[in-house]
């Protein structure tokens, strides 16, 4: 990552229990989660987390329940305080903030979307959407104007006067997103924001988020337990297990080069054709007298290419990015990339991304 990260987490540890500071040396010297719980009655929340999050990108933190992902995201706006480590946002250590400065961070720099929506049930949809403005002390008119603007943007133009309980789950989460967007903060934290929604609505919401992101270029930290969702949204993917990072990087790269049996297990059930993109499996462009069957975009999914080729594996395509020729894709490579790499079977295509 060449850009300066907007959020940088360094050496973050979190231990839950009566006396976390005394348990910290045990953890740094390598004691495991179950051992710590049995022998010392402390729960290991997070262990040595280091993540750099680039501005205007979506960083997805993925893990199963209990992996510490929700704990991790709450460290960014200090809903939870760490046992050790640093959280640096735009160059400032958040952990040094006092009460008032921290409130300003939460009001102006970071907004949050919750799994269970967490809307104020006694306020109308419009009042909920304008919440952040009102908390900041801006006048009613501004709050309502901003709230209404973002409600319209997420497709809830006609529901301003309703109460949250009158809306469906998907609509409530749209209000949650409008509420976060209305604060105009550069960073958005999304804690399993779509996990409580049913699959079709979830896909809708993912598309909505990507569409908004294209336009708004916010720094988004997204928590999920769903790998499909993670791969769809992530610019940078972090996989957590038992409070520690197992692997992080570009999602295509993780998919093609799982570093760990745990991740191999994870990615083995994925519809790879839909997730992998041409640029990840192509070979560098070289002129070798191939007869190209056509030209494809480097960001096209393998699935779309299979469709174009009609399933014929003998073809070879020229890969273009913004009109430049960047690579060659043999259909054979494509087909091979569809099979998850197993230990001892490591002859998949060299990743290019």
């Amino acid at each position, binding site marked *: 990552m060449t850009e300066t990260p907007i959020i940088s987490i360094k050496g973050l540890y979190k231990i839950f229990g009566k006396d976390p500071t005394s348990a910290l040396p045990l953890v740094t010297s390598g004691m495991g989660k179950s051992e710590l719980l049995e022998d010392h009655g402390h729960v290991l929340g997070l262990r040595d987390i280091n993540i750099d999050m680039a501005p205007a990108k979506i960083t997805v933190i993925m893990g199963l329940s209990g992996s510490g992902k929700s704990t991790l995201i709450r460290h960014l706006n200090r809903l939870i305080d760490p046992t050790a480590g640093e959280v640096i946002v735009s160059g400032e250590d958040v952990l040094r903030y006092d009460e008032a400065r921290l*409130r300003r961070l939460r009001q102006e720099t970071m907004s949050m979307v919750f799994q269970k929506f967490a809307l104020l*049930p006694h306020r109308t949809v419009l009042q909920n959407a304008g919440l952040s403005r009102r908390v900041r002390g801006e006048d009613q008119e501004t709050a309502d104007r901003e709230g209404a603007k973002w409600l319209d943007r997420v497709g809830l133009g006609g529901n301003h006067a309703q109460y949250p*309980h009158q809306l469906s789950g998907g609509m409530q989460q749209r209000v949650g997103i409008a509420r976060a967007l209305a604060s105009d903060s550069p960073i958005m934290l999304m804690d399993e924001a779509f996990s409580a929604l049913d699959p079709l609505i979830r896909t809708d919401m993912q598309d909505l988020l990507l569409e908004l992101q294209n336009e708004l270029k916010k720094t988004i930290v997204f928590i999920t337990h769903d790998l499909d969702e993670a791969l769809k949204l992530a610019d940078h993917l972090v996989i957590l297990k038992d409070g520690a990072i197992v692997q992080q990087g570009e999602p295509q790269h993780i998919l093609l080069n799982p570093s760990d049996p745990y991740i191999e297990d994870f990615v083995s059930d994925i519809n790879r054709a839909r997730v992998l993109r041409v640029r990840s499996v192509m070979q560098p462009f070289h002129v070798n007298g191939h007869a190209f069957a056509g030209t494809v975009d480097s960001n096209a999914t393998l699935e779309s290419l299979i469709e174009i080729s009609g399933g014929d594996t003998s073809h070879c395509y020229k890969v273009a990015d913004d009109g430049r020729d960047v690579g060659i894709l043999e259909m054979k490579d494509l087909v091979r990339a569809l099979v998850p790499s197993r230990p001892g079977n490591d002859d998949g295509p060299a990743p290019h991304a």
Partner: protein
Amino acid sequence: MAFYDGLFDTLGLRDWCDGAGDGGPMTMAELLAKSSGRTAEEAAADPTPLLQTPFPSLDALNDACPAVTRTRDMTDGVENAFLAIKDPLKVVLDPITQPLSWALNGSLEMFQAIPWFVLIPLLGLLVWVASRSAGLVAFVIGSFLFLGFIDHYVYAVQTLSIIFVCTLICVALGVPVGIAMSRSDTMQRATIPVLDMLQTLPTFVYLIPLIFLFSVTEPKLYGIAIILYAIVPVIRLTDLGIRLVDKDVIEAADAFGMSDRQKLWGVQVPLALPNIMAGVNQTIMMSLAMVVIASLVSAPGLGVLVLRGIRNLELGVGLVSGFGIVLLAVLLDRVTKAALSRINVSQKA
């Protein structure tokens, strides 16, 4: 010869005992023993059988050793101690509680000064604002017209006025205490035993010191008795209500940088309102129950009639005024519950 003589002799306390003089006025037991004609020597002649060993109480020990105080003297001591701190206590409590007397008197005068043909429609309007139920308005107006028809209107209005003032004060004091309890576990642990005591202590027990502390003719006497008894539910339910507010919503409030005050008045109290209102409902019911007992210490209202019924065995008077109280209870309950359900509907999560 008393049973525990030997005990004091062996402990070598005989001199101390006998040095204390005669041990005060004669008790009833001594009087009876005397009148039965037995002398002390005769009594000593046949020692107490072991099976009839008396409990080593203050009185039994006093028989053997006059230096030990008797139970009667002990209660006298408590009384004197209370009387001794009464005056300084009064200097502090009197000015603090005086506004309560003014409020109760003022409210009684106000309620009685408003003519019935104004007050009854006014109550109807109030019920309409609170409940938006035409049936309930009709019920309230009908009840008051009926009470007026059987000449119980003034009494009912007096009772209503006392409840009105006491409930307002209970809410004004109870809600802040409940909020403080919900914010601090220490405060909660310290307050709950007091609340338990207020709820279990029989009313008469704390009426006795109150009567000594204030004069029976002062309205604040019954005001305090009612408030002490009725304030408990509103405190408990405020605490509970705020503690039960959805943790996710509180977290969201934190995540958007709300200050503690914004969180309290913008989120916690509004969301706890159904529980707080349930507490107010209970408080009203309990003050109504207490109004009858408070009539023992000069609280006016329907309770006076109930008391007259008991005192003079006027069955009819007692039953009719009792019915009046039930009627008041039902309508107060209905009105507050209707108001409560309106709140509930508007913020069902």
